[in-house]
C-alpha cells in the first residue's frame, strides 16, 4: 500500500498547497507538524539542501519545493487535473505560479512587516504585480477556469493569508476598488467547499500575526 507523508507547518501557505493537491486527488496521507524553530532530524534528512517544509515523502522518497511537489502529485495520481493538459496552457499555468512566488508573495509579505520607505517600496512592487494578476483572472471564476488548478492553489497566500494579515497590520493594498476581479476570485476561492476545509483557522492565524506585531520594536 502506498505510503504518503507530508512534513508541514499548519500556518504555512506553502505547506497547505501540498495538502490541497493531495486532497484534490483524494490521496490519504500522514501529516507531520514541524516545529520550525526546532526542525526534526527526519526533515533535515529528507530536505538536506533547503532544510524547509513542505516535504512530501512517497514510499520513502522525498520531494521538496511546493510547486515541484504539486506537479509530482498531478503526475503520480489519477483524479482531477491540477495542471491543464494542453502544453501551452500548462506553460501559462507554470508562468503564473512562478510569478506569484517570485513577484507577488515576497513584496506583499514585506509590505505587511516593514516600515517607512521599505514598506512604501514593497507596497509599490506588490501593487504592480497584483495588477498583472487582476488582468489575468479577468472575469473567470478561478485561474484554472471553472475548477481550481495550479495557479489557484499557488495563489492561496493572496486569497486567504494576505487579507487577514493586511487587516491586522492596517495595510490597504488589495482593496476591492483597485482589484475587483482579484477580490471576487478571493471570495470564490475561500468559500468553495474544497478550499474552505483546507485552510488554517482564521483566529489562530490572527493570534500568530498579532504576536509578531507585539514582538516588533516600538517604532512601528
Amino acid at each position, binding site marked *: 500500500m502506498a505510503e504518503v507523508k507530508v512534513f508541514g507547518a499548519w500556518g504555512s501557505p506553502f505547506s497547505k498547497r501540498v495538502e490541497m493537491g493531495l486532497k484534490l486527488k483524494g490521496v490519504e496521507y500522514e501529516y507531520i507538524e514541524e516545529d520550525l524553530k526546532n526542525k526534526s532530524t527526519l526533515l533535515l534528512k529528507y530536505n538536506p539542501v533547503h532544510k524547509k517544509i513542505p516535504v512530501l515523502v512517497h514510499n520513502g522518497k522525498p*520531494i521538496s519545493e511546493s510547486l*515541484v511537489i504539486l506537479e509530482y502529485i498531478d503526475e*503520480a495520481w489519477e483524479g482531477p487535473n491540477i495542471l491543464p493538459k494542453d502544453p*501551452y496552457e500548462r506553460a501559462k499555468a507554470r508562468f503564473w505560479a*512562478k510569478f506569484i512566488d517570485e513577484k507577488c508573495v515576497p513584496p506583499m509579505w514585506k509590505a505587511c512587516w516593514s516600515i517607512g520607505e521599505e514598506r512604501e517600496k514593497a507596497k509599490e512592487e506588490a501593487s504592480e504585480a497584483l495588477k*498583472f494578476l487582476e488582468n489575468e483572472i479577468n472575469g473567470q471564476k478561478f485561474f484554472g477556469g471553472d475548477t481550481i488548478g495550479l495557479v489557484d492553489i499557488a495563489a492561496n497566500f493572496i486569497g486567504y493569508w494576505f487579507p487577514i494579515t493586511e487587516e491586522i497590520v492596517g495595510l490597504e493594498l488589495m482593496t476591492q476598488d483597485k482589484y475587483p476581479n482579484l477580490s471576487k476570485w478571493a471570495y470564490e476561492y475561500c468559500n468553495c467547499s474544497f478550499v474552505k476545509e483546507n485552510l488554517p483557522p482564521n483566529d489562530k492565524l490572527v493570534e500568530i500575526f498579532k504576536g509578531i506585531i507585539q514582538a516588533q520594536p516600538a517604532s512601528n
Partner: protein
Amino acid sequence: MLDEVILLDAYFSMFGMRVRIALAEKGVEYEYREQNLLNKGQYLLEMNPIHKKIPVLIHNGKPICESLIIVEYIDEVWKNNPLLPSDPYQRAQARFWADFIDKKVNDAGKRIWYMKGEQQQAAKEEFIEALQLLETELGDKPYFGGDKFGFVDLALIPFYCWFHAYETFGNFSTEEHCPKLIEWAERCEKIESVSKSLACPIKVYEFVLILKKKYGVK
C-alpha cells in the same frame, strides 16, 4: 501546417542558451532574433509585457516566457529525444535541481562580478557551495540525467561559459573546488547542441567588462 518558431534571445544569456540547446536537441527549425537588451524592441515588449526579458519562444504566434518553462513546453510539444525522464519521481528531482540552479548558482554568480570585498567573498563561497552540492548530486553518473544529457544538464551547462568571467573577477578556480563538475562540463561541450549554443567564454568576459563599466562596478 508548418510550425512557425521564433526565439527572441541574446547571445550571452545563459537562459537563452538553455532554449537554444533544447531546440537543437529536438531538431526544431526556428528563427533566431538577437535582441538589444539596452534598447528593447516593441515586439519583445509585446511578447513579454510582464518581465520584458529574453528568452521568449513564440510558437505559431503564441509566446512562452521563462527559460525552464520554455524547455518543458518544448519537451511536451516535440516528443522525440525526451529531455525530462518519464518517471514522475525522477521528473520531480530534475525540476528540483533546475530550480536550485536558478536560485543558488545564478544569483551568486552575478554577485561575484557585480560586488567587491566582503560581499564578493560571500558570493564566491555561496557559488562554490552550490556547485559542490551539484557535484555530489552528479556522483559517478556521466550526466545529471544518467547516461543521457537531460534537463538538469541543460539547465546548468550554459553557466559554464560564464565560469571564466566569474573566476577572473573573483580570483578563484572552479576546477580546484569541483574537478568532477568541470569534467562533466567538458563532456557536455562535446555534444553538438551544446557546443553550438554556448557563447565563447572570452567574449563573455569582455561582455562582463562592458556591464561592469555600465553599472559603475570597478
